[in-house]
């Protein structure tokens, strides 16, 4: 959208649309299917999360992405409510890879440093221990007392390498920056 003139202050500011945003999405694997969405709503209506949420609407997120209203997508916590069950992808009449587009969008959000704390927490757990959940010492000891073998140790240098390749290290770094 060309911003030629400043609208008078009294009026409601129109949403800023970034026409190049969709191309950012479409560069990523399966992101290219974003453009063919015709907004039928099969994704939202099939979505198990949407049935329990007032705000999570995959169709709406896709529309916002098509229009390039990035400020409404990337900072939004609802983006992270997808459980990756892929029912939307399965039922989409236009073969839009809905769940994958959402994944692409989450990745973009991460790039912009818009990751909810909990996901950073989980990622750094993996980074540090190889487990998404840090097992407390007490729990480890309890295993011993009931005769369970100790949990296997993850090979951290491999985890490190994997995170590096997947771009996860940046996520951790962003946490460290905080």
């Amino acid at each position, binding site marked *: 959208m060309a911003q030629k003139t400043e609208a008078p202050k009294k009026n409601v500011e129109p949403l800023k649309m970034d026409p190049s945003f969709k191309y950012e999405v479409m560069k990523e694997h399966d992101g290219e299917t974003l453009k063919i969405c015709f907004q039928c709503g099969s994704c*939202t*209506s099939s979505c198990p999360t949407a*049935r329990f949420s007032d705000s999570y609407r995959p*169709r709406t997120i896709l529309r916002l992405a098509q229009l390039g209203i990035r400020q409404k997508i990337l900072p939004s916590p609802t983006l992270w409510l997808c459980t990756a069950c892929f029912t939307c992808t399965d039922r*989409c*009449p236009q073969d839009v890879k809905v769940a994958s587009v959402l994944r692409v969008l989450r990745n973009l959000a991460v790039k912009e440093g818009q990751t909810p704390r909990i996901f950073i927490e989980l990622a750094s757990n993996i980074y540090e221990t190889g487990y998404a959940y840090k097992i407390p010492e007490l729990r480890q000891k309890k295993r011993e007392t009931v005769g369970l073998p100790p949990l296997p140790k993850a090979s951290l240098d491999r985890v490190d390498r994997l995170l590096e390749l997947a771009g996860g290290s940046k996520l951790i770094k962003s946490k460290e920056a905080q």
Partner: protein
Amino acid sequence: MTKVQLQETEHATPTESIRIGVYVCHCGLNIAGSVDCEAVAKFAATLPYVVVSKDYRYTCSEPGQELIRSDIKEYKLNRVVVASCSPRLHEPTFRRVCEDAGLNKYLFEMANIREHCSWVHLHDRESATEKAEDLVRMAVARAALLEPEEENTVPITRKALVIGGGVAGIQAALDLADTGYHVYLVERDPSIGGRMAQLDKTFPTMDCSICILAPKMADAGRHPNIELLTNSEVQEVKGYIGNFKAKVMKKPRYVTDECTACGDCVPVCSVTVPNEFDVGLSTRHGIYIPFPQAVPSTYIVDRELCLNKENIIVCDKCIKACERQAIDFEMKPEILELEVGTIVVATGADVFDPASLVEYGYTKFPNVITSLEFERLINAGGPSGGHIIRPSDMKIPETVAFIQCVGSRSERGHLYCSNVCCMNTIKDSLLIKEHWPETKIYVFYLDIRAYGKGFEDLYKRAKKEGVLFIRGLPAEVIEDRKTRNLWLIGENTLQQELYRINAEMAILSIGIEPRKDSAVIQRLLTLSRTQDGFFMEAHPKLRPVDAPTGGIFLAGCAESPKDIKDSVTQASAAAARASILMAKGKVTVEAITPRLIEENCTVCGLCARVCPYNAIIFDKEAKRVEFIEAACGGCGTCAAECPFDAIKMRHFTDEQIFAQIDAATQLDAEKKIIAFCCNWCSYAGADFAGVSRMQYPTNVRIIRTMCSGRVAPKFVEYAFARGAAAVLVSGCHIGDCHYINANYQTLKRVEKLWKKMERLELNKDRLQLEWINASEGERLASKIREMQAIVGSVSAEEIENSKKMMRKG
């Protein structure tokens, strides 16, 4: 008027009899905007045999045409080249200009510098001009070798065959019969009437379907010029435009014409099956009449069902019940041989079966029905006497939900829009409101397409009546086991809110799909089908009812999903087109058929083996090879197959194609792609890329052949021998070939060439094969973009190598 440039050249040697005039068209700024037309005209003047070369703003305008006409006389031109738009657009125009000036129309050649040049290279004037010059060079080289040809005329039998007795077939048959031609109307079912007979009311006027159809059916039944062949199927069609020979099998009805349709035989019959006409919602007996208004009004015995099917009379109840003694189990199938000049294909369509969309629960939940079933329920002549009752408890539902786009606009059904379902649903909702105004009606839709005359009014009426339209299809339908009511769950996309709506009945608005056995008709008549599976027309806009095969016309849903009005319109158009041929009584065949060069022919029979039309008579003993000109389609795959150069494909001769390759590779061959494109699909696809302004690199030079089957391996080899970086062979998709299956040969030949290139240790990626249809401009453009990597990677050494290798052959 624009300035006219005149540059006579000294290149044309007076002893040489060939005198070419070149006209470079600006097409306003369409060409001149990105090509320096003046420079191209100046360049053309330097080419051999060119006597006069001019650029002109609109060559196709009357003054432009006059310019060519007067030049032909003034400069004694015997070849004309116009560099302008696609020959698919204006070749006929300029051919007529040549003929007006006394020049044989086969001595005209076109260089396509608009669709294939200026429009696809909008931002690179220099390279576009260079390419335009090359294209003119190629056209002039070919023009110099053109020969005058005479066209043969073929007589046309003044009889027509109409396949399919739905409303389209009936209309076409009536129009043809009224014009005065004898018509055979063949219908597979026991009665004509088709889908329209099953419908209750029609949109947008809400008039009764059978009430307006029945008189037409009766007209067709008693028209002196119409021979009605019901319960019959076309088994074989041979021949060609004007001279088809069709074999039709007339299956026995086991009831003679003595039948008065009194119906006494029905109650005594002891076997029943679901009634097809009522889509299985009622039953019929082994002897039956499909519906009361059936034409012919004669009963029929379903021998598959009848107890007497093993040809032993074990039950004679109906025979005894028939006073007129019209039942005859001795009737045998008859094969009729019909000679006709034209054929109208009106084979109709099937409906989508929604059982595959499990989330809607069709066939699982009794109260989920299809729109066609609804038509029978709401019809006063239907199984429920016009009451919509829900199957689970026979009660009239208080809440009804329509679900749109079932099987349409979806990867899980058909990709296209079925055209009629929106209006059909609106009509159906009004019918319910008419009978039971209190009924709550929901319509779940994606888009409502109310595009026709009176459609929007009807849509508005439905809204006024209180029909609730909700944008967003339900994701699933869940049944309440106790009440058998249905829960529809989905998103109201305009509110971004989920809905969960209880309905007592759900009607799936199912789409239209091609007949399951369209492939049979396709094979019988050598037709083509589009990707959707419907029969393809010769031109989507300008010849919408002509099939690509001469003398065959399309009407109704066989061509694409359409409503009654459009079917009738198209049927009348098809009848008119067929009448034009029959009124003329003869047709000229384009002179692009092969000629045998007898001294080269070894009577090996390879040509006859690859001919898709069986147009080559091959007799090893009598040492005879002969072409049946009228049956020949002109694809040229015989000439490409002949290893002895014994077939000359008129107007697409080896020499002409070699000359084009020569001209195309004269400059910077090592940077160029030589592309062979078939006239119908790939060349048209390239035209489409032009019309859509899809930009692609300038280094491709397209050579047009009628079919990709014309592309002989020697052409490809020659292009490499001349140093071309890459070669693209492209044709219609397998199965869509305009010459039945000639492109199978293309595939075989290219595969052979790849093997050969491997053997010679040449990079076989330099030869690419791509199927591109007329609407796949982007596919062509991206193929050429993709091939840049190949062009860029080919080393000078490799080019030299292939030059040597390929020259050796």
